């Protein structure tokens, strides 16, 4: 296998899935009509409800759904089971499940006055399903903060990275000042901030800089006599053979750095920090991904040895080690969350894009087109980690992209440093927004009962404490899979709503119902497996040991979250079944379908 074939497979999936399946569903079942007034036209308020061209919305939707998710999921899954299962799920998942959810949720919202997914759940299923969906959302945010916090703290201990990320924060502050206070041209702001950040990232691999950061990390670890604070068993350590990961003082320091970065994003005005950091970060990511994709495409012709996959196609059916379980089914389907299907997309599609559609017919290229494009990003990440062959997760991804960039004459050492920095930037820019979102969610949920939660700083610090608690108590793979579980359950709930909507309109709902059933059963099973893994891998080994109280507490907390997710999914599934039966009996009795 090589990069060219993988790219052809990805592009062929896009073409065939979009042209022969998505278009058919749009024409035969949804029957999108360019003459029908969209919410953007009916309820135009100049802000949220405002028509925009399909090309703008395609870019906007793609940006909103494609970032760290498709990259992290693909590289983690490839490491656990090999590249073939990951590639198969990416292409089959997006063709039969992913675009179905994004596009159908968008059309459902467009046909229901631009209602958000929680409002639709309230009306179509039951009042409590709205509350359940919001609890899902909060747990989703908490778990993504935990998974990304864990990932970032680990990668930031790499001495090539911290300088570039510090520069990103400063470039964000500078960008906000230049753009909004000094009213400078966006082109100048872009050149200065992105250029400065790239320059400092390039300094990362310089020996003197590396030596200084290493020395600093060493000094931090010496504060605890170079001893770990705790050691956690990580099934992905030692090239997926399993091993112990030491949490040292330097790890906690870089986690605190991530928290400060996110605190600024959550507490400062959006224009001052969050938005410009996001903007600068996006450029770095886009340049790296674009360069990497071009390099992957031409590597086959220029340097074939760089284009060949070194990772095994298939490793094992069950990648679990030492009493933990990682069976291909159901774990692959939550490990690769975005890229194949993601519940997050349904939120974006309903409260964001659906309210800005100029014509109903735009939903197909915007919703389905963006999802197929995101799959290509997942395939690119998979290619990078597959050609690298060795290393785990982010490091393997960076080595692969560094190889692709070396096609253009860039030293692989600098290419890898740029790729690793771009990876960290993608993750940390999402992280700061997640903490801001958590703060808002906490204020909404607890503000009335606990007025102190309305305070901006209290809300932010509470969110960060939750993140710390989760990060310090789990290994990345469990956090990621639990996040994937919450995300994929949201996806199956979105598909459930689409199914009910189609039934209520007496349309053929099979194309949404079958993926919904598959995702619903698979994700519930995956959450139960993760709960077992947390018990066997985190809680049980730590019971009764000194210094492991926080680890055990956090492990139990995450088990509780896993079981809560399952319980809530069963509740909402039951409510949806009741709603379905009601609709069917009304239809049999000849009651008209709701408009």
């Amino acid at each position: 296998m090589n990069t060219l074939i993988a790219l052809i497979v990805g592009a062929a999936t896009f073409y065939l899935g979009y042209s022969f399946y998505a278009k058919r569903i749009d024409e035969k079942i949804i029957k999108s009509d360019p003459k029908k007034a969209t919410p953007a036209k009916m309820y135009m308020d100049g802000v949220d409800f405002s028509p925009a061209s399909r090309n703008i919305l395609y870019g906007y939707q793609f940006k909103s759904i494609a970032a760290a998710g498709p990259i992290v999921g693909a590289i983690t899954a490839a490491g656990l089971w090999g590249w073939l299962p990951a590639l198969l799920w990416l292409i089959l998942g997006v063709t039969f499940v992913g675009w179905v959810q994004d596009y159908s949720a968008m059309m459902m919202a467009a046909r229901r006055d631009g209602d958000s997914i929680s409002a639709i759940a309230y009306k179509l299923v039951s009042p409590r399903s709205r509350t359940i969906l919001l609890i899902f959302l909060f747990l989703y945010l908490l778990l993504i903060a935990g998974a990304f916090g864990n990932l970032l703290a680990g990668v930031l201990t790499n001495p090539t990275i911290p300088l570039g990320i510090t520069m990103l924060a400063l470039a964000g502050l500078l960008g906000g000042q230049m753009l909004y206070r000094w009213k400078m041209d966006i082109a100048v702001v872009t050149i200065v901030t992105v250029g400065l950040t790239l320059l400092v990232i390039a300094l990362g691999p310089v020996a003197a800089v590396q030596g200084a950061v290493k020395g600093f990390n060493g000094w931090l670890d010496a504060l605890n006599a170079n001893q770990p604070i705790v050691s956690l068993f990580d099934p992905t350590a030692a090239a997926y053979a399993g091993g112990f990961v030491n949490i040292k003082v330097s790890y906690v320091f870089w986690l605190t750095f991530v928290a400060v970065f996110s605190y600024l994003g959550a507490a400062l005005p959006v224009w001052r920090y969050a938005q410009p950091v996001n903007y600068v970060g996006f450029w770095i990511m886009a340049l790296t991904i674009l360069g990497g994709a071009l390099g992957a495409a031409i590597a086959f012709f220029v340097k074939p040895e760089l284009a060949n996959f070194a990772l095994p196609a298939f490793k094992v059916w069950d990648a679990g080690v030492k009493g933990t379980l990682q069976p291909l089914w159901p774990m692959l389907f939550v490990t690769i969350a975005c890229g194949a299907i993601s519940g997050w997309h349904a939120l974006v599609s309903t409260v964001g894009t659906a309210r800005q559609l100029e014509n109903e017919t735009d939903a197909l290229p915007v919703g389905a087109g963006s999802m197929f494009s995101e799959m290509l990003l997942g395939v690119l990440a998979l290619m990078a980690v597959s050609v690298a062959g060795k290393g785990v997760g982010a490091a393997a991804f960076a080595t692969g992209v560094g190889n692709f960039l070396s096609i253009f004459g860039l030293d692989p050492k600098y290419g890898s440093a740029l790729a690793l920095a771009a990876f960290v930037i993608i993750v940390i820019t999402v992280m700061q927004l997640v903490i801001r979102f958590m703060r808002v969610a906490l204020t909404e949920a607890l503000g009335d009962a606990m007025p102190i939660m309305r305070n901006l700083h209290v809300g932010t610090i509470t969110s960060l404490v939750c993140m710390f608690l989760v990060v310090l108590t789990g290994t990345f793979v469990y956090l990621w899979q639990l996040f994937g579980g919450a995300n994929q359950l949201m996806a199956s709930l979105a598909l459930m709503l689409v199914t009910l909507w189609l039934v209520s309109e007496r349309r053929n709902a099979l194309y949404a119902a079958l993926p919904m059933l598959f995702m619903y059963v698979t994700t519930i099973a995956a959450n139960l497996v993760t709960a077992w893994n947390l018990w066997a891998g985190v809680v049980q080994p730590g019971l009764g040991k000194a210094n492991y109280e926080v680890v055990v507490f956090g492990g139990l907390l995450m088990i509780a979250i896993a079981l809560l997710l399952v319980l809530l999914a069963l509740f909402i599934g039951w409510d949806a079944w009741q709603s379905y039966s009601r609709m069917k009996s009304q239809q049999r009795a000849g009651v008209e379908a709701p408009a």
Partner: protein
Amino acid sequence: MVGGERGLTQTMSRVKDFIYGLLFYDFTLYALRTRASIESLFLLVTLGDLIGLPIMPPYYSLRILPYVVPNIAAWKRRMLREKDLLETDVMGMMSG
């Protein structure tokens, strides 16, 4: 030849729109939201009685009315629409 040029112009315009959507559209939305919130506040103070919140004496409201007539319908929709937790200021910037 003319058809080819038109095709190229059209493709360039699509790419331009895509990049605008990818990079700058959330800036536009943020600016629009900021302007809308200031405008909403102004209209609430001056014409609050239109949605059941009389704050200013009607005399001043009537003096301002001709200038704000074009904005009233959109303002009422913005103010009276049920809002969701998902509609936070960062929703447009978040990525999956």
